[in-house]
């Protein structure tokens, strides 16, 4: 018991927290601003809160690109190959571009492409997954077959081969290709989740009332899965950031554009790594890694909220103790 006692927080807020295996840490700060419930939950979890703050920072930097970066990302502004210095915070490329403005402006392209691709992928996954679950029978079988085929074909090679066949390169094409190839996992997950919903009475009632297939899927099933779909969106967004940057890195993007992957492409193409110009690839790489880390943190938070067993042992032990003895509640009462 001695190792448990010190970590028990004692304070007036304690008794306000709901108790139980699904107890979610509530944020009093959030409530004051009148945030919706899910936002309060996410901000109350330490991991997802970190992720959200980090992600918000990156988005802010992307939006404020013209204010942050003095130089144009596509102008030759300095001597080539300068390490980071006062004028060029992230140094210059081997051509003389400003790496800092390339990274900041590149955030716009990279984030937009990933967001649009994630939206496209989520829409496809939701439509197919819910349709398969609701319709069942041969519709389910056909959709399942397509899902399985896309699950079996490794995504990156497929992306590369499709890019090879598409005559143009650029953000729009990238979004379409990514949306077309990354939906399978989410469709599979959403289908299995929806299976339990489509058998409920309210869906049957809607059917009896004469609502059409898409009406039921859109108005009855979908609203019950919003949190799951949102979690899937974060996951696909994460994948899209990596896939888009990776494809651009391999030379399948618009090599004259400005995005994180394209900066890395030129770094690799001009073998600046072998010349020791670390700033040319470390900063865009860090930008990608930070974005990805932010999304992973948000996802962990979502996971922990839905599965309390994954939470740290401290909180669980505390919760268990509270459940068993009610001692904490007693102590909180005393503290008042």
């Amino acid at each position: 018991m001695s190792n448990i006692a010190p970590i028990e927080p004692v304070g007036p807020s304690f008794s306000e927290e709901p108790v139980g295996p699904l107890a979610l840490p509530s944020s009093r700060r959030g409530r004051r601003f009148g945030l919706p419930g899910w936002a309060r939950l996410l901000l109350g979890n330490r991991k997802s809160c970190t992720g959200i703050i980090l992600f918000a920072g990156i988005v802010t930097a992307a939006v404020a690109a013209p204010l942050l970066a003095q130089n144009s990302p596509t102008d030759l502004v300095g001597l080539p190959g300068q390490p980071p210095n006062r004028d060029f915070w992230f140094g210059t490329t081997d051509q003389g571009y400003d790496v800092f403005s390339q990274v900041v402006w590149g955030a716009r392209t990279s984030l937009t492409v990933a967001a649009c691709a994630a939206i496209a992928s989520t829409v496809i996954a939701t439509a197919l997954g819910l349709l398969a679950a609701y319709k069942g029978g041969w519709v389910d079988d056909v959709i399942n077959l397509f899902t399985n085929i896309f699950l079996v074909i490794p995504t990156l090679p497929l992306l590369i081969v499709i890019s090879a066949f598409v005559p143009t390169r650029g953000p729009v094409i990238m979004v379409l290709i990514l949306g077309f190839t990354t939906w399978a996992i989410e469709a599979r997950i959403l289908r299995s989740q929806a299976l339990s919903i489509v058998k409920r009475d309210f869906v049957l009632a809607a059917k009896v009332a004469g609502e059409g297939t898409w009406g039921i899927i859109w108005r009855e099933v979908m609203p019950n899965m919003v949190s799951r779909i949102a979690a899937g969106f974060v996951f696909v967004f994460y994948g899209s950031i990596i896939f888009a940057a990776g494809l651009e890195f391999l030379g399948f993007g618009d090599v004259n554009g400005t995005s994180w992957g394209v900066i890395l492409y030129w770094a690799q193409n001009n073998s600046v790594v072998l010349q020791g110009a670390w700033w040319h690839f470390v900063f865009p790489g860090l930008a990608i890694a930070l974005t990805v880390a932010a999304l992973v943190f948000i996802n962990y938070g979502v996971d922990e909220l839905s599965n309390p067993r994954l939470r740290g042992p401290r909180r669980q032990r505390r919760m268990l103790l509270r459940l068993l003895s009610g001692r904490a509640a007693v102590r909180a009462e005393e503290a008042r």
Partner: protein
Amino acid sequence: MRYLLRRLGFYAIALWGAITLNFLLPRLAPGSPIDGLMARLPPSQLAANPHMVENLRAYLDVQQQSLPRAYVGYLKQLATGDFGVSTSNFPAPVSDVIGRVLPYSIFLVGTAFLLSFLLGTTIGMIAAWRRGGIVDNVLTPTFMSLGAFPAFFSSLLAVYFLGLKLGWFPIQHAYDLGLSPGFDWAFLSSAFRHAQLPILIIVLVYAGGWLLGMRNVMINTVEEDYVGLAHAKGLRDWRVMTHYAGRNAVLAPLTGFAAQFGSAVGGLIFIEYVFSYPGAGLTLQQAALGSDYPLAQALLLFFAVCVLVANLVMDLLYVVLDPRVRT
């Protein structure tokens, strides 16, 4: 047995689907691939490779046929192992090119993937067993962040710091220049040294996924009654962890093997590209950039078959590990 047959049936259908998708891709793509090729190729390159255009015309001729007939022809070609001629390695057939680059990739991804699985599940097992202990608090977050890093960034960092700055590993190619591939000591030792850093990166990047999968399942397993019983029998702690809790927990992460393998194949492309490692991944990238469609498509099909085979191996292993599916 019935379980295995059902799985085999599924793989046959999935393989057919992958082949069909591969067949349809060039026909679904907007515009003719040859237009894109002409637009992208510098005139000098066209002049230097007169055969390339000719070849592509011949290849595209197939598409002038009706769709069903072309499809049957395509299946026949595949059945005889004829993938066409690689336009970027003219006049080498695609199968020769793949045969040449494949051993490198199989060696690289096979070794690395096995190691990352062993490392990840072992650490995941220990982390869940001693939850909040040193292993859990240090190694879990370390591998998780390594796993979240995109593979291309990790390899660039590794090339720069471990290869260039510290000089611990060779950083380019699969073997030293001046050696020719063969089964002699000089070549094999050189190839082994050149594979070290790529393997290290794959292991570090992919162990995190296994670790997390194993840890999440194991956390539930350690609370099972039979684990308590094993303790009560007076078995050693280590033995309960490996033979009781670990053995049962490892089944769930194994089901994610194929997905992990598919993503490792993707990671392989980045790593081979960064290291100029002449494997299947780098060849796919070069073929796709150089509009060598026969080679690129054959490699895509090959990767898909690899993932299918990985699935099949996993199913077989599952039968060995889980007595319940044997009946």
